[in-house]
């Protein structure tokens, strides 16, 4: 009798748990973990167009959900990563990619930092060279050298005497 009550209690508990669990919005996962893995890799490289500062993988916007669903379909159709990327770029432009392609319009974007770095290095070298020149390099005369030797000698002998 007790066992039965416990059993039914446990059953009620489980049912209640599952109800409360299903009340939360679950992001649909593909049945295939391999597909899901590829989806994550691809969508992490893409921008969510609604939030713009989030990746497509991390966004919870409605459009991001739809686009992930679309990418999932493309993966299951056996499309390559390249084809999927093209699919997205055809619709949303290069903006959808976090890593913009190298082409004339993005040359400055890609090589700009290196130009600035190079300019900095050249500037620093010019500055250092000028500064070195500014320090007067005077060579000591014979007489000065002799005087220094004498003084050093004196200092040595006086320290020995002590």
């Amino acid at each position: 009798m007790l066992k039965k009550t416990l059993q039914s209690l446990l059953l009620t508990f489980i049912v209640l748990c599952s109800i409360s669990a299903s009340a939360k919005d679950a992001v649909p996962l593909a049945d295939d973990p391999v597909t899901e893995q590829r989806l994550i890799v691809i969508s992490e490289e893409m921008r969510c167009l609604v939030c713009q500062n989030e990746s497509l993988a991390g966004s919870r916007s409605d459009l991001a959900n739809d686009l992930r669903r679309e990418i999932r379909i493309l993966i299951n159709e056996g499309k390559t990563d390249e084809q999927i990327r093209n699919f997205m770029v055809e619709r949303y432009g290069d903006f959808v990619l976090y890593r913009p392609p190298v082409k004339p319009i993005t040359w400055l974007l890609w090589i700009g930092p290196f130009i600035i770095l190079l300019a900095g290095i050249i500037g620093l070298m010019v500055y250092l060279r000028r500064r070195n020149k500014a320090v007067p390099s005077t060579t000591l005369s014979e007489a000065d050298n002799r005087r220094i030797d004498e003084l050093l000698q004196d200092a040595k002998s006086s320290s020995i005497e002590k």
Partner: protein
Amino acid sequence: MKAKFLIPLILFVILVGFLAVGLNRDPQEIPSPLIGKQAPAFEIPQLADPQKTFSPASMKGRPWILNVWASWCVACREEHPVLVELGKLQLAPIIGLDYKDKRDDAMTMLARQGNPYLLSAFDANGRVGIDYGVYGVPETYVIDKTGVIRFKHIGPITMELLRKKIIPLLDELK
């Protein structure tokens, strides 16, 4: 020697120039790669009559406007009167693409606010929207006689935009 003092000033002016351009741009506005290309083909049921379908191919031979809207979208409600005005001018047929909407809600909105559309296509799951690169409703496309997208606007159309951009473009496309 004097010119040396000007270098930081010149750099500063260039920087201000870049920032001024950057700040005056709308970061929400992303140039569409679809401009100058054929409008993507589709065939989906119409909003008012699910038995009938709509396909952009049926619009060939005349310029037309595709307006993506939804009853849940606040900006669309704001835009709607402008579309009604545009519809009165009869410059080009306006086709609606009802994006991820509920049929009843959409019909109610049209009944309440007026229907500027020749017809609306019903994009229940947003699949057509993806082909048009829709990422925020409302969006409006102007498509020419040959089915090429000539203009795209994201966000509600204003009277000013209508006067300055859309009406002249439609005149040109005739």
